Each structure stands twice: as structure tokens, then as C-alpha cells.
């Protein structure tokens, strides 16, 4: 471990830790826009300057490796002046329409402008790119808010491994683009939305949250994504009991700060009228079991082929015991009459590893067949 001092606080960190991380992990805040703990270092935002004892010039803390005995100051008049100057340049190329911005309250640039008391830019406001791209149903790209921190580019390349976007053009004309600036759908993008999550500004926004409330209007519920066995932690932002958007929480045990497209955007089932909330038995079976009065005939077309929101026309809700009792008795009957190999099991990726293990054990040891497969192989 390496011991250093930041703002008179003595801190121990692992070797090769950068000073910005060392500070943040220890509750000392240094402003930063391009740094993200899970991404490579960029050094482009120039905000994380600190003073290092023994060095004349301020140094970027994100690019500074902590060394034994280092003495760091994160606040000083000089640093405030420089950070203020840099922020002033940032906001000269950014619409200051926070009063109507959906990101207000969770925008990092706004937070720093507030912290450093920048009501307006002292330069000639000049927005570099007015490009507005809403070419997909999941997120939109509003370039006038983009501060070119490059987090989206790095997350897409380094974490998602897709590299659908990168910097295009140079200097003041730089913007984030897909190859040849084609529509998102024609790029290699998998719409995981991790770029949206790491974006500090309103340049990348989930479509679902537009004009549906700002950060302080939303409630947050921590949950586990139901889509697969990985068990990513997920945070639902809701208002009046409706989901506004989903994102990864700060430190999910399985997923860190990232999610895939299903967890992030595929939550409309939660409030869908089609959603099944309890087991159901087909009407003819239920009648045979004496659960319903009226007899019922299976129509020509299989109910599985009919996409009908009114499932109750075909099915009767039952309790779990009844449902399980029925399944187990039918399995026993079929095993006895046709042999165990007349049954096959198809496991689901939505179950955990443990569930899947138990399922194949059940098929082999209880039913007595090796006919078992998994949907992930289909």
C-alpha cells in the first residue's frame, strides 16, 4: 500500500492508483468530467487539476499515479481560478437552457457551474454543433449539449467492445459519430445504452424520460434485472408508479455500472396488461379437475397461436399448489405410460445457474432422461 496525503487527510491506496481515484474513494471531491472509474484515462476535460508539493505547476490528478509520501492539495485560489476558467470555456459552447433541460439536477456540468458560481459565460457563446439525431427508439443524441468528454466512445469500445461511435472531424468541429455519421441502426451499435448512462450531460438521453420529470421528481428503486441469470442490479427511476427509465446503480455486484439493452430498455412488461401474475390452467383441464362448472372445448386453433390479451377466455387462474400438483401428476403418468425418454426439458436463460443445475438434476434423477437442453443454445 502507498500512503499519501490529500488535503491533510492521510490516505492509503493500492500501487498504481491515480490520485483522482484515491481522492474520490476517500470522500474528497475533485471536479472531473472525462474521468470514469471503469474507463481508460483521457485527460481531456482539464478540470481535475491539483497541486503537488514540490511541483510548480498544477497537475491533472487523473493522470497522476499516487506515490509514497505525496502531498496533494485539491483546493486553492489558483486551482479555483483555473477550473473556473476551463468551465467558462465549457459553458461558452453549451446552451444554458437548464430551466427546460431534462438533465437538470443530474448534469455534472450544471453541478460544477453551480459550484464555481458561473451564471453565464464571459466569452461569446458559440455552440459548436447543433446536430440533433433521434434515429432510434431508445436514446437521442443532441450534440449541442455534448462536451466531448469521450466517455461514450470509451465505454462503447472498452466495456461493450462494439466501438460503434468515435470522434469525427477535429478541433471545434469535432463531434461524436457513427461511421460516416450513418444512422445508429446501421452501425454496430447494440443499443445497450451504456453510453447514455456515462454521459455527464444531456447529449445522450433515454427517449422514455423526455419531459416526464426531472431528477428531483423521480423515485428510485433498486432491483435485480429479471431477464437473465447474471442478476445485474438495476435501478428504476419512477414517477407516480410508472417507470421513467432504468439504469445501472453505482456499483452492482455483478454488473458494475453497466447493463445490456434488455435490462435497460425492456421494462415495459412490468406494467403490461398481458403480464401473467399467477399460474393458469387451460379451461378444459380445469373442468376435468372439477375446478370450473362449464365444460369447454379446445378450439381448432391452438391457444398458443393466438395472441389474445384476454387470456382468461382460455385459461383459469389457479393457485401454485394446484398447478404444481397437476404438472407432477401428469409427468408421473406420462413417464409410466410412455417411458422417461418421452419427456424433454428446456431450461431457460432467465433462471440462475443454480436453478438450471437443479433442473437438469431433476430431469436426470427424478424423471430419468437425458433429454435436456437450454434456450441459450437455440
Amino acid at each position, binding site marked *: 500500500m502507498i500512503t499519501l496525503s490529500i488535503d491533510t487527510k492521510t490516505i492509503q491506496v493500492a500501487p498504481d492508483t491515480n490520485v483522482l481515484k484515491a481522492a474520490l474513494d476517500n470522500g474528497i471531491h475533485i471536479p472531473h468530467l472525462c474521468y470514469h472509474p471503469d474507463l481508460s484515462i483521457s485527460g481531456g476535460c482539464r478540470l481535475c487539476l491539483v497541486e503537488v508539493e514540490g511541483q510548480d505547476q498544477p497537475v491533472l490528478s487523473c493522470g497522476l499515479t499516487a506515490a509514497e509520501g505525496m502531498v496533494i492539495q485539491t483546493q486553492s485560489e489558483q486551482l479555483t481560478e483555473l477550473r473556473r476558467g476551463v468551465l467558462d470555456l465549457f459553458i*461558452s459552447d453549451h446552451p444554458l437552457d437548464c430551466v427546460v433541460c431534462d438533465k437538470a439536477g443530474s448534469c455534472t456540468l450544471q453541478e460544477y457551474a453551480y459550484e464555481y458560481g458561473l451564471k453565464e459565460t464571459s466569452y461569446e457563446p458559440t455552440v459548436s454543433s447543433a446536430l440533433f439525431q433521434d434515429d432510434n427508439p431508445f436514446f437521442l443524441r443532441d450534440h449541442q449539449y455534448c462536451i466531448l468528454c469521450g466517455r461514450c466512445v470509451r465505454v462503447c469500445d472498452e466495456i461493450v467492445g462494439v466501438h460503434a461511435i468515435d470522434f469525427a472531424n477535429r*478541433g471545434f468541429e*469535432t463531434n461524436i459519430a457513427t461511421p460516416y455519421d450513418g444512422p445508429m441502426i446501421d452501425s454496430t451499435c447494440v443499443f445497450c445504452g451504456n453510453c447514455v448512462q456515462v454521459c455527464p450531460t444531456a447529449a445522450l438521453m433515454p427517449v422514455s424520460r423526455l419531459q416526464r420529470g426531472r431528477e428531483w421528481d423521480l423515485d428510485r428503486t433498486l432491483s435485480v434485472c429479471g431477464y437473465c441469470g447474471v442478476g445485474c442490479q438495476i435501478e428504476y427511476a419512477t414517477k407516480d408508479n410508472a417507470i421513467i427509465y432504468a439504469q445501472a446503480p453505482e456499483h452492482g455486484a455483478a454488473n458494475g455500472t453497466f447493463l445490456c439493452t434488455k435490462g435497460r430498455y425492456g421494462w415495459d412488461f412490468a406494467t403490461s396488461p398481458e403480464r401473467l401474475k399467477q399460474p393458469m390452467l387451460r379451461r378444459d383441464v380445469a373442468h376435468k379437475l372439477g375446478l370450473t362448472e362449464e365444460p369447454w372445448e379446445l378450439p381448432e386453433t391452438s391457444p398458443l397461436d393466438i395472441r389474445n390479451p384476454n387470456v382468461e377466455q382460455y385459461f383459469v387462474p389457479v393457485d401454485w399448489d394446484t398447478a404444481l400438483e397437476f404438472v407432477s401428476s401428469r409427468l408421473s403418468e406420462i413417464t409410466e405410460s410412455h417411458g422417461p425418454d418421452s419427456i424433454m426439458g428446456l431450461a431457460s436463460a432467465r433462471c440462475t445457474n443454480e436453478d438450471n443445475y437443479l433442473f437438469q438434476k431433476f430431469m436426470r434423477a427424478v424423471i430419468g432422461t437425458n433429454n435436456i437442453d437450454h434456450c441459450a443454445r437455440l
Partner: protein
Amino acid sequence: MSREKLDQIAEKEQARQSQFDKRIHCCISTACLSAGAGHTIQTLRDSVEAAPTGDEVEVVQTGCMGLCSRGPLVRVQEKSGEEVYYADVDSECAEELVAKTVSWDQAQAKQQKLSSELQTVRARLETARRKRSLKKHILSPDMPFFTKQVKVVLRDVGYVDPEKLEDYLAHGGYEALHKVLTEMSPEQVCDEMLNSGLRGRGGAGFPTGLKWNFVRREQSDVKYVVVNGDEGDPGAYMDRTVMEDNPHQVLEGMMIAAYAVGANHGYFYIRAEYPIAIDRIRGAIRAARRHGILGKSVLGTDFSYNADVRIGAGAFVCGEETALIHSIEGKRGVPRMRPPYPSTSGLWGKPTVINNVETFASVPAIIKEGADWYAQIGTEKSKGTKVFALAGQLTNTGLIEVPMGITLKEIVYEIGGDVPGDAEFKAAQTGGPSGGCIPNTHMDTPVDYESLQELGSIMGSGGLVIIDSTTSMPEFARFFMDFCVDESCGKCVPCRVGTVQIRTLLDKIIEGRGEPEDLDKLEALCQLVRSTSLCGLGQSAPNPVLSTLRFFRHEYEALIPTNA
């Protein structure tokens, strides 16, 4: 191929050259070519062929002779070594020159049957013999333009045929490489560089021996050497000239570096706008490979080395070493934070030496003549010579090589021959868009790294623009700011946005809309961009504005309505 074989080639070439009574060198470097050197050399060749004693004269294509503003330049070299320079040699002048250079003694005349075209040329030569205009074209060898220069890097430039390895060998080429491979340890080579005091000619002036030592001491199975031939400073063409006009000299310097640091592979990074340099370097690499100078067993020793060319797409920032590395790696050419420096983690994460073309081109002479010889040229802290592309409002402009420590005054009034017309010398800009201007009140300043820095400028890579009294300094500064706005890579905000805002302020002031507080605002913004930008481009972009503000503030003030 062994050293002996190369010596034989060199001797054969020297013998071939000494057959000729006279050799006519014609510069075919870019500046002369654009002044019509293509026609000149063709006329020289035809005329020599048609002349009665033409086989005693050889016409040689060479590189830059320096006085580019007077091109096409031609030099006649006698067997005795005596030389005469001719300026502005158009076809007509070339005929007269040949007519007066060859002997018309019938006894020596060769027996030949002239084709009808050559008969016409012969007839023209007969007429040209009687003309009297050649004198006007002669440049006096006593011109300060020539006498004030000290040629180390450019010594053979303008003499050797850049497309002939034999000619380079005949001029002592690859002797230095052979010397280090057979007589010196890598450590000794690095020490020799340290002792010579050679500092990087790419702009920053970092001691070359120190850099090589860093890389030499790194433990790594693979190391690289990179020649920085990106030369983005507008108007500068020192590196292009050396690569075009004596490519083997750069290759030799690079190979000596490779041996010194333990590298077996290297790259020339050359901007795409330099197609001739690319061709010549590639040609040099091919010729060197054919002759066993490059490859598995260099000059018969157990040192192996290979070099390749990588072409840059012409972004100024790709001259910055980390951006250059990204560009060679096939990534977007943007700088990254240092450390780690390329000497520890460079190309593909391996220890890498990156030096400027001129730095490498200085190396063979240092090895051959010795560090002490080199260190006696120049000043205490800036040793050796520096090549400048002298441009702007001067009588003589072109490529010059001067000892470090020469004063600006000597360059402007003696080498440059003063500002033409009624105007006066006002300031000199060194370092291009990254540098600053030095006003005429400081013209006794010695040109060395420290003195220029004290004045708020930099040595830079060799751009030297002379400004006369008719030029407006705020507009001059805006020209360079425009350049930086265009060339900023956009990675960091002070440079991406700051340069645009500096230009906006300059526009406002120049267009007469300035307010009194704008000058302080401009200065503060320049300081901010300088102290917070990521790479040298942004850090130095404000220099032209800051230095004109420092020395010519009154010109800015005069533009502000309330002060006017």
C-alpha cells in the same frame, strides 16, 4: 555487404566523377522546380550533349543549395574544387552557361553525329557563346549569404544526387554507421551524443544523448526508432529538404540511434504532402537493403535493422510524439498525457526513440568528426548548427544553416540582405504557430534555445519569418491563431474552445469593435489556454498573441476605438 565492397563502390564512383573536367550541379528541389528547374536541367543536359566537348562535363541533379528566392540555382564545380554559383538560371541562361563552360577547342572535340534536334541546340550554343548576360547571374562566393553559414546538416545537400546511393557513399556515407558498429559500444554512442551537446531539433531542444540513454536502459525485447518527418510548421521545409535531398543521411542517423538503444526496427513518419520525400526515403531504404546496409546483417556485422515508411495525413498535431505514435498504430492521431513518455512506453507500448529529421541528420557528422568538434560550434548550452527556412520580407530567402548563437541581426542584414524597398525590419517570428516574435529592438539576441525562450518565443523546428514595418502585428498573430483553430485536435477544451475564443476576440479587436478591457481579457485567456492545454499545440498556441501583446501592445491599443 561488407565494408570493403561499399568502399569499392565509393571509390569507383569517385573515380567516375573525377573523369569530368567540370560538373554542373542543378538544384531540382521543390522551390527551384517550381521556378522552372525542370526546364533548366533539361536544357543543361541537351546543351552538354550537343556541345563539342560535352563528355568532359557532367550534369548532376542535386538538392537545395539554399538561396531559394533566386532559383533555379546552378553550381559549376571545377576539378580543383573551385565553385561558381549561378542564380535565376532559365533555359536561355543555361545555354549560355554551357556554351561558356565547355571547351570549344576543336582538337578536343568528340567525334559524333548530331541528330537534327541536337544540331539546332548546337547552333543555339554558338549564338549563346557571344551573349554577355551570364555575369548577371553569378553569385559572389563572398556573399554573406554563403560565408555566414556553417554547414553540418546540409553539408552534402546540394552536392549529392539524392537518388544515387553510390554518390552518398562517394561522399563518405555510412562510414559513421560502420564506425559505431565496429568500434563503439551502444553506451559510447550515447555518451558521444551527450558530449556533443546535440539537442532535439523538433522544437523542444531535449538533449538527444539523454533521450537515447533512457531508451537504451529500458529492458525490452522490442524497441523502436521513429523519425519525425511530419513538419507541420507552415512555411518550414528544412526536414523536407533533408529527406528529399540526402535521404541516406537521415537513414544513417536513424540506424546509429537504433544501434545505440538496441532497436531493430524503425519508422519514418512523413506527411502525405511530401510525396518526393516519401519516394526518396523509400528509394534510399530499397537501395540500402540491396546493398546489405539494411537487413539481417548490417554491413556484415551481427546488428540487424529494418525501416519502413508511414504516411501521415497532414495534421499538424500528428507531429506531436504521442499523436504520431497513435497515427502509426492506426488510431486517431490525438495526443495523450505524458508520462509515460515514449522512451518507456511508445510505439505499441515499447520503448521508442522519436527524433526530428534534422536531429538524426546531425548524427553521422558528430560520429565522424567527434563530439568535441561539434561542441565547439554554438554557444555554451546550445551546440552545433540550426537549419532555418528563412522567409518573409527579405531580399534573400531560402534554406540556411547557421551556428547557434548567431545574432538575429546577422541573419537579417547579412544573410538575408535586409528588407527590400523602403520598409524596415520590424520583427522576426521563430517557431511558427508555437513561437513568438522578436522585435528589432532585440536583434542582438543570440539565436539559442534559452535566449529565445526568455523573449517568449521558441527555437522551434526552424521556421523563421521576417516581418517588415508594413505588417500589422495583430493580424499576423491572427494568422497563426487561425492555423491553431484549424489544427487543434479537439481533445481538450482549452485548446478546442479557447483558441476559437481567442480568435473571436482578435476579430473583434481587428475589426475595430474592441473594448478597453478586451486586451486584458485576451491576455488572461491566452494564459489559461497555455497553462491548461493537454499538449504542446494548445500550450504554445497563444505564444504569437502573447508575444505580439508584449512587444507591440500599442498596435492593439490603437485598434480600440476609445484609445484611438
